[in-house]
């Protein structure tokens, strides 16, 4: 049963990265769009993702619930030592979620729209950035449970080159996903071109920040190259990700939106496989060879079993409904009231 839980944990994380990520990305693209095109991006985004917006963010809740029910020690340790970045990420989530809804449901369109937009865009950047920082610090060996003093325990646990680079990389991946998604939703050739350019620059940003990740891993002594290239799974996954990236660029011109989206999703999954496989089942690597492992630090067996059952039963209800939702609104342009 523990494996069921682990699979759900990993899959929810992936889905959050993909679906939530595309959503963050939309804000990131708005942030880096010239003024006169900003509004078009935002209204396009609301129209296309409005109906599934709430659902996309549920994956994070599922991750958290799995963590605290199934892996309470991991949840407690992460939320203790990474309190500060989690807090900032939460601020981002609050700002984003509310700004997105408020700008849409404000009955009067006036200067307030500018405020909502600003908040939405900046928080779309901050949230995945800190998500990346949290992921990076969880494995970089900088959490030190024996630390004395505020700075050593609660600041330098996450503030270092590697995690910042992972944060930037996460941001650019989100932007890329959103651009790829939006390419498929465009109506005019000119718009399509615009998003292709966006996708290209986000792709470029991902390559640069990816390079930074490797560089900073070397500086911070994170054995990243060993994780990625020290085993067959890592190598295969990275190769698959690269190949799918190349195919995506071939196909983008042809405008096959479903395949491209699928490939982009596949590419991100492969990156997640590569970065999680090597140290699995250890998910939190702390200073001095201390670690927290999914296999050793899970909760009581009976609790894990009931969690697994709850997840399985939940999926029976959720998945068909979710597919039907996505399917319906792909067919019919959502009409907002």
């Amino acid at each position, binding site marked *: 049963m523990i494996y069921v839980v682990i699979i759900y944990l990993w899959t929810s994380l992936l889905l959050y990265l993909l679906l939530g990520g595309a959503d963050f990305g939309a804000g990131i693209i708005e942030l880096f769009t010239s003024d006169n095109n900003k509004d078009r991006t935002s209204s396009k985004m609301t129209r296309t993702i*409005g*109906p599934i917006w*709430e*659902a996309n*963010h*549920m994956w*994070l*809740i*599922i991750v*958290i*619930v*799995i963590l*605290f*029910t*199934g892996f*309470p020690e991991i*949840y*407690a*340790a992460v*939320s*203790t030592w990474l*309190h500060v970045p989690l*807090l900032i990420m939460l601020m981002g*989530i*609050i700002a984003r*979620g*509310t700004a*997105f*809804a*408020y700008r*849409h*449901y*404000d*009955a*009067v369109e006036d200067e*307030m729209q500018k405020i909502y937009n600003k908040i939405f865009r900046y928080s779309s950047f901050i949230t995945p950035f800190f998500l990346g920082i949290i992921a990076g610090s969880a494995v970089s060996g900088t959490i030190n449970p024996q630390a004395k003093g*505020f700075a050593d*325990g*609660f600041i330098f646990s996450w503030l270092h080159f590697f995690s910042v680079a992972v944060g930037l990389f996460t941001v650019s991946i989100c932007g890329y996903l959103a651009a790829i998604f939006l390419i498929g939703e465009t109506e005019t050739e000119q718009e399509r071109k615009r998003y292709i350019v966006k996708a290209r620059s986000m792709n470029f940003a991902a390559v640069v920040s990816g390079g930074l990740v490797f560089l900073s891993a070397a500086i911070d002594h994170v054995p990243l190259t060993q994780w990625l290239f020290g085993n067959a799974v890592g190598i295969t996954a990275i190769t698959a990700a690269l190949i799918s990236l190349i195919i995506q660029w071939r196909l983008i011109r042809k405008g096959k939106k479903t395949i491209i989206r699928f490939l982009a999703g596949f590419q991100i999954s492969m990156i997640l496989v590569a970065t999680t496989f090597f140290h699995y089942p250890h998910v939190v690597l702390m200073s001095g060879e201390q670690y927290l492992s999914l296999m050793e630090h899970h*909760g*009581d067996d*009976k*609790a*894990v079993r*009931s*969690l697994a059952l*709850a997840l399985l*039963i*939940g999926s029976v*209800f*959720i998945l068909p*409904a*979710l597919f039907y*939702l996505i399917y*319906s*609104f792909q067919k*019919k342009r959502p*009409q*907002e*009231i």
Partner: protein
Amino acid sequence: MNDFIAARSQMALSLAFHIIFSCIGMVMPFFMAVSHYYYLRTRKMVFRNITRAWSKGVAIFFATGAVSGTVLSFELGLLWPGFMKHAGPIFGLPFSLEGTAFFIEAIALGFFLYGWGKFNKWFHWFTGVVVGVSGLISGILVVAANAWMNSPAGFDYKDGIYYNIDPVKAMFNDAWFSQALHMCIAAFAATGFAVAGVHALMVLRRKNIEFHSTAFKIAAIFACSAAILQPLSGDHSARDVAKRQPAKLAAMEGLFQSGTHVSLLIGGIPDSKTHSVPYSFEIPGMLSFMIGGNVSTEVKGLDQFPVDDQPPVVITHIAFQLMVALAMVMFTVSVLYFFVLWKKRSFEKNRWLLRLFALSTPLGFLAVEAGWTVTELGRQPWILHGILRTQDAVTPMPGIQYTFYLFTAVYISLALFVILLLYRQIRMVPVLYDVPDGKV
């Protein structure tokens, strides 16, 4: 402010904020389903307009409720890692089921908000009902988790070790039913009074009379039915508390000395030094009677508990008195309302009643906040009643007072935004919806 107090205040603030939005998220879908139903049946535009106007308001509340709920699921760990480390697996089951309920709710909400004119009309109506039902279920589930903190079950405990864990037993602990029932009714009363009050005010101002008086009626019927039932459920809760948390009951009632023939104190400010409750009104024997059905029932007072195990009595007592007093006011208003309905008097002629409702707008939510203060403060000093002390569960991170200030600022600004948006929605009603029947 020390870190421990700051952590408690931050938790309290976040929950007190969230509960408002979750009550609305649980209840408004039912109001909308009713007016939507009447629209589909009668095709009267006013019902359609009410449904749509409400659903815009609800979307604002949902978004705020969703983010504040997300924050809570992190805060449990950010503030109380020492608690979650042990409690997570035991009371995680309701939370994992709740995850499903939220998901369904979010999906159904997508269909409902964006599906006007796109689906079979009854399917569309049904998705609105699903939003309400899954909201209600998720409310019941979280409250069951909270009830477990009041009435731990489903595990054995010795020397800091929790073993023999049974999550199902933990979920169906002794307190879950009374708390969940009381909470659900409270949500209907609170949301109902708030909504009815706003519409009553608009009717008084003679704005869009048809729209507002119809909306008022839907909300008022729900609100008043709930407010009439609530004292029954509250009485059940109180007896339940007497059994499982006598210290909480003693604090609620301001009861310092145990005994039989204990009087019920109404009002007053408990004084822990003199062990008396000055300014209170006494009904002799009443508390014993209410708890055990008999004036000679023994009721435990605070003297039965070491000072270290006593909850703070002043605030708990006052909060309890406040909840009951508000319950009585709402009960009276509700009875009057049903009387007027029964006599088929027109509200135009009974403007005093509308005025009463307008004045009662915040009462339900005040009662909800007071009730939660009773429940949570009355559980102190325990985070897990009788097992783990709140003090031993708090995060080791220093500087929590600053995060508390930050959250205070954030919640205040969110509240201001929500008020502004709501104000604008209501002000736009004439522009958006004031069309005579048959047009559009």
